[in-house]
């Protein structure tokens, strides 16, 4: 069997471990964004960090429901992906609402740096950081 022979395409269509049929919430997700979606290609990367501003945390009363929950949760910096999971919201809904909350200065949004994946200094830092993490052998 070889990957580059014509018939070697993965054949079994049946078992796809996707989340189909799993309702993301009681409310249809894009009611929360008044039907707005992020333009394809303009999405913030899902690891983008979101942090509440001091003003945002002081003005929680001005917000309701999901928007308030987002700002509250962002007292600790976290990614859009983590935020979506913690609040049980669709990732793309969080993207739209985080954009609104940034415009309202409730949040700051820290996008990953462009071209980070070819940044020699960043790559070295990640390698060194990984070498230093406690592993099972170290913990035992």
């Amino acid at each position, binding site marked *: 069997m070889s990957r580059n022979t014509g018939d070697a395409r993965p054949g079994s269509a049946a078992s796809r*471990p996707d989340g189909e049929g799993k309702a993301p919430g009681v409310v249809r997700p894009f009611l929360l964004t008044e039907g707005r979606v992020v333009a394809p290609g303009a999405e913030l*990367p899902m690891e983008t960090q979101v942090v509440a501003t001091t003003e945002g945390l002081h003005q929680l009363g001005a917000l309701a429901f999901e928007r308030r929950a987002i700002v509250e949760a962002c007292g600790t910096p976290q990614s859009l992906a*983590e935020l979506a*999971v913690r609040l049980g919201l669709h990732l793309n809904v969080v993207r739209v609402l985080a954009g609104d909350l940034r415009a309202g200065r409730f949040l700051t949004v820290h996008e990953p740096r462009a071209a980070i994946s070819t940044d020699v200094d960043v790559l070295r830092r990640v*390698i060194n950081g990984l070498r230093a993490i406690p592993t099972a052998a170290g913990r035992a």
Partner: protein
Amino acid sequence: MDFVAGSRTRPEPAPAPMPVKMVIAGGFGVGKTTAVAAVSDVPPLTTEAAITEVAAGVDDISLTPDKTTTTVAMDFGSVMLDPTLKLYLFGTPGQDRFGFMWDDVTEGALGALVVVDSRRLEDCFPAVDYFERRTMPFAVAVNRFAGAVPHPLDAVREALDVESEVPVIEFDARDSESVRDSLIIVLELALARAMAAA
């Protein structure tokens, strides 16, 4: 500075770390989530990611004339490498009759580890094809299920027909040291490429 900041003030809440990410790809049940869990600081979370499906099969092409966007469940974890640097690990599902575009997940990733069960090698073909096309640094990691790797790595490399610079390694998805070392192998390839390009 490291970020394109979204606001003018320094918030009192803790400053955000610089996020970096890597992708752990492979077929269903191959050990992706296990590998994420082995090194993540927190138990893996499950989110739904948008993927674009491009019809690549011969059947049903009339039903998917172009491409469609769908969502798939995806597990991810994170490792705080230092107070200012957080590594995210995204496990992307990959067994399908469709070609995949995981751009939503892979955009900006430092590299990818393609996890392989050598008894079901074909399950990783879409992932290998994808990362080759994207010219993203990746390594093929054959998961050592219950001890033995049933096929020698040379045979795996030959069957996958990957370029000689692509590492084909053996690892244990349950073992944090093994997963960590595999990620470092991917990053060293990424570093070598970045230095060659500089």
